[in-house]
């Protein structure tokens, strides 16, 4: 029993859940013991979106140093705009809209990898440059109009059973699938192997190119999925809907215990970190903190977490 407990505490993702629990407790205590369930329910609803993009970012970051997808916010926006525009509030067109949005996201992923591979530029600058084009495409399609989602989509995105959002359950299943993929499939093991040592992975005969291609496509498509769901949840797409997700997608990966140096991904930690990030904002809101204070606190906590968790081999001074 003791062995089990210490093994559990040794897991890199436990910290994020403990932190989330602590923040939740503080918030509830400060609110006078009321609304704990309600806070948790909305935390689950909002964390769901961060988890979707976090899963994609986690896979990308796990493929090694320098790999990060900065086009996630733009892809989310493009996908949301395309989906809402095609659906045009018609329930019959929901599948068409989702298919088109996912198709567009797929193309973004292909373009990202194409730039990295053909121009031999670092993924940061490749995904950054492509995000400009993606965002412009979204602006020109969306024209700043906010089109409402069809009712069934909005219902699905906001539905809850006993306070647990349906979307959260679906995304928990998705996270489990990605966790199993990472641990038990050739693709997942290859992702980790590339992150640990790309050259060794290549020499071992692993298909490095195809794996990286699949990873960037996966990240883009998860961003696309998040864009559609988010549009359904918040009553339509908006051109700034992806803005908060650049930092969030990276932060949940880092706080969740995934190695920033690559080679070691962690799925449960993404959930813990996403809940923690939302609950932190909620707690600061309950404390009556101004938007500026919330921003500073969010930034400082991310820096503190990365400074404490750090990399595996801090430089000996």
């Amino acid at each position, binding site marked *: 029993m003791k062995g089990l407990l210490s093994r559990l505490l040794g897991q890199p993702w436990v910290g994020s859940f403990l932190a989330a629990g602590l923040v939740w407790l503080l918030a509830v205590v400060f609110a006078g013991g009321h609304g704990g369930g309600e806070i948790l329910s909305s935390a689950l609803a909002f964390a769901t979106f961060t988890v979707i993009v976090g899963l994609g970012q986690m896979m990308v970051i796990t493929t090694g*140093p320098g790999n*990060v997808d900065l086009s996630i916010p733009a892809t989310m926006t493009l996908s949301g705009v395309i989906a809402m525009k095609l659906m045009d509030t018609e329930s019959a067109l929901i599948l068409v809209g989702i298919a088109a949005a996912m198709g567009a996201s797929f193309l973004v992923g292909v373009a990202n990898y194409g*730039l990295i591979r*053909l*121009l*031999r*530029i*670092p993924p*940061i*600058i490749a995904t*950054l*440059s*492509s*995000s*400009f*084009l993606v*965002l*412009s*495409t979204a*602006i*020109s399609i969306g*024209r700043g109009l906010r089109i409402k989602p069809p009712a069934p989509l909005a219902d699905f995105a906001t539905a809850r059973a006993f306070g647990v959002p349906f979307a959260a359950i679906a995304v928990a299943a998705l996270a489990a699938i990605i966790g199993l993929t990472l641990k038990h499939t050739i693709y997942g093991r290859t992702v980790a192997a590339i992150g640990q040592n790309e050259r060794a992975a290549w020499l071992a005969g692993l298909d490095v190119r195809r794996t990286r291609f699949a990873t960037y496509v996966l990240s883009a498509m998860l961003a696309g999925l998040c864009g559609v769901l988010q549009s359904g949840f918040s009553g339509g797409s908006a051109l700034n809907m992806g803005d908060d997700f*650049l*930092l969030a997608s*990276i*932060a949940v990966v*880092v706080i969740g215990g995934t190695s*920033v*140096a690559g080679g070691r991904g962690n799925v449960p930690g993404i959930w813990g970190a996403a809940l923690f990030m939302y609950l932190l904002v909620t707690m600061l809101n309950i404390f009556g903190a*101004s*938007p*500026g*204070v*919330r*921003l*500073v*606190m*969010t*930034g*400082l*906590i*991310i*820096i503190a977490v*990365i*400074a404490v968790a*750090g*990399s595996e*081999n*801090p*430089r000996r*001074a």
Partner: protein
Amino acid sequence: MTNPRLLRAALPFLTLAFVLTATFYVQPRTMSYFGLNLMLQYAVPIALATIAQMFIITVNDLDLSIGPFVGLVGVIAATVLNSNPVLGASALMACVLAYGVVGALIHVRNLPSIVVTLGLSFVWLGIAVMMLPSPGGKAPAVLKAIMTVQTPYVPFPILAAVAIGLVVHLALMTTSFGVVARGAGGNPKALDRAGWSMLGTKVVMYMLAGLFGLLAGLALLGLTTSADAHVADRYTLYSIAGVILGGGEFIGGRINPIGAVAGALTLALAGAFLIFLRISPDWQIGAQGAVLIIVLALRALAGSREKSS
């Protein structure tokens, strides 16, 4: 056959010349003292921010917080610096010192700079929003006077850009400190074993980045005359793009200060050029992304010839 390495070094200036010629062709009236002054005035803060980013890129890091930092400097200068010059100046100095502390933290703990600076960008923005929740404040008269000075014959922005490029070029490309700094990006282990302090080098480079970010914020405030916490959010992207357009590499300490300034001028001009072309504002950001991709493609082409020759 042209020398590929020469082609590579000339690429930033060829790009600038191309955009400038195209602008003159589309709108001949810009070919004047007044026209150039108007088109290039925002190139000065962009060039300063680009140089700040270049210092960070020299040591193989990336600064995703420079945009909000430039915004924060503007906010401090438009509020506290007016009412209490001593306090304002010390606040600005503290910001530059904070950059040094962050550099030390990143070096000692061997942290990924993107994550730390992304967190830092929230800290800058948060402080700026706390100090100035909605746009306002007033630029000190000195800044306005400097940024709108009418120099004889050659417009001020061009003189300023040339001066910035030359000063940084001399400091980084011709001094022994510059060699160590670039070496910190090229082969930190070798320099460490040779007895140079990599921690010290990184802190100095981060503080230089903070200093140029500070200058960028002051220059921008001199032009906008009132402050806004979000005014420079785009500068993070501009500064990275400027360094890349200017021929810098992300790793290995391969940088080009004069090229980076040329890159910043190209970015500032590209904005005006796209307006003259009557490209819909929807595609303004996209066009900048496209320019970036084209330049990188050209460089990849030149690079492959460099290797094969």
